């Protein structure tokens, strides 16, 4: 059974803006799915419709087979949402935010306390449970939203840019948490602007552009589309001009830093041989950009 199924989903806002132009999407049970797109591409609108925060114009949405129009409450029970913006009561304590949210799902207070403890410990927030939420740091506030979304054990968790604006240490701990939640059987849909995050975590991917799905496949297949690798070379000696070697594209970004685009069929050994023949010595090299980022730019531009 699919965790999520979107059929010909459209959304036109009151001002006439077509945010979604009929998208179809299926996310399998237990999947870790990346939904990528530039700002304004339609990701948040799609997520808003799936989670009943935005009215759709037409189309169908079902969560674990429950249509959000006809089996709204059953569909909602399967879903957990971590939105982009902070949306909890900033005057409540962390624990109360979770207890009240559990109450909305009809979970009695005694059971909710046990679940809140588990969820807060999982997010390393247990010692902050009595803190008024507005006093938390940005990263902690995001973790509160994840803890809240997990309290009713959803089968599908949507994370809308959960790591935006958090430092690298917290981001990495959140990646571990997401992996752990997914390994426990929860399907995850992740939207992010950190494409290395999507590349390292997600198995399947869809790219949305101007309200349409322009790419939808598994991550490995998508990455295999890349036919050029980009590297940055640190040179041992300064160069005045980028070399001209057939089959490679060079660009000098400073006198000791050379960018190179290498066709995927070529090996690095071939490149080094060619450079040696031109008397260019390499001290070190690194990937110019994330592979998925390159592909993303190719698709949406």
């Amino acid at each position, binding site marked *: 059974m699919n965790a999520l199924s979107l059929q010909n989903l459209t959304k036109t*806002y009151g001002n006439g803006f077509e945010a979604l132009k009929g998208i179809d999407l299926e996310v399998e049970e237990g999947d870790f799915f990346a939904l990528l797109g530039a700002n304004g591409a339609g990701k948040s609108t799609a997520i*808003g419709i799936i*989670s*009943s*925060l*935005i*009215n759709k114009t037409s189309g169908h949405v079902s969560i674990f087979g429950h249509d959000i129009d006809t089996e*709204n*409450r*059953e569909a*909602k*029970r399967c*879903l957990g*949402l971590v*939105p982009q*913006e*902070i*949306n*909890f*009561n*900033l005057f409540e304590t962390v624990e109360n935010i979770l207890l*009240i*949210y559990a*109450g*909305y*799902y*009809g*979970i*009695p207070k005694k059971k909710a306390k046990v679940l809140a403890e588990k969820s807060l410990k999982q997010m390393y927030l247990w010692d902050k449970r009595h803190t008024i939420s507005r006093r938390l740091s940005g990263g902690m506030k995001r973790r509160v939203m994840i803890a*809240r979304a997990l309290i009713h054990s959803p089968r599908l968790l949507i994370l809308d840019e959960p790591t935006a604006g958090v430092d690298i240490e917290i981001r990495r701990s959140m990646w571990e948490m997401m992996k752990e939640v997914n390994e426990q059987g929860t399907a995850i849909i992740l939207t992010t602007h950190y494409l290395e995050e999507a590349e390292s975590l997600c198995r399947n991917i869809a790219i949305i552009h101007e309200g349409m799905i322009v790419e939808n496949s598994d991550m490995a297949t998508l990455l295999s589309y890349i036919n050029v690798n980009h590297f940055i070379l640190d040179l041992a000696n300064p160069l005045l001009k980028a070399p001209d070697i057939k089959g490679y594209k060079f660009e000098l970004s400073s006198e000791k830093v050379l960018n190179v685009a290498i066709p995927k069929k070529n090996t690095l050994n071939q490149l080094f041989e060619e450079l040696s023949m031109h008397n260019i010595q390499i001290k070190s090299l690194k990937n110019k950009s994330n592979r998925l980022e390159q592909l993303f730019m190719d698709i949406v531009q």
Partner: protein
Amino acid sequence: MSTSTTLYTIVYKEVHRFLRIWPQTLLPPAITTSLYFLIFGRLIGDRIGTINGVSYMEYIIPGVILMSVISHSYANVSSSFYSTKFQRHVEELLVAPVPNWVILVGYLSGGILRGLLVGGVVTLISLMFVDKVEIHSLFIILLTACLTATLFALAGFINAMLAESFDHISLIPNFILTPLNYLGGVFYSVSMLPEIWQKISLANPILYMVNSFRYGFIGVSDITVELALARIIGFIIFLISLSLWMLSKGIGIRN
């Protein structure tokens, strides 16, 4: 997982909210109404004499109590639900499987309970200004107070749903509710007005509530109590239907 737990959660949250900030919610009406009773009831009222066979102080007490019920049941729901929208945690209610009627009843309960609690506080304060409060029909008093609190809690809820800024929350109380309150016969009998103003006053819903409530205390009303209660119930049914329709369409809360 039950709906009753969900409803209890919202009611508990709402009641806890206004009790936690009692200096803002319960104390001001105690001070304001003490001043009403002192200035209008005692200082000016002693010179007015009697209205409909009772002292001016006894005449205004029911109206002042009900005025407090009206303004606080309205303010509680409008400010609480609008804050929920403003801080975006209304999204918690929309994402979770909470039926619309539970959202409505939950928020109304908070407003009704605050309105009645404030009404109780004002009643206790009135006892400091009269030897004893006359009670003609406790049933009519309680029924009118509950229906009035419900009606204005509903109005506050609709105001909050439609509001897009805090200004919109204060517009209705300042420019509509306060004038209707003061022109609703709290401090005078409509029979004292010229005939044309008596007729115009009949369009003011608060007039029916104040008179029905006053009837419960002193057994005297400018209009028929049954008619007053029927009109209040009619307004309530209309506003409940409107609120549920707005919730189902997501007006003001869903894009």
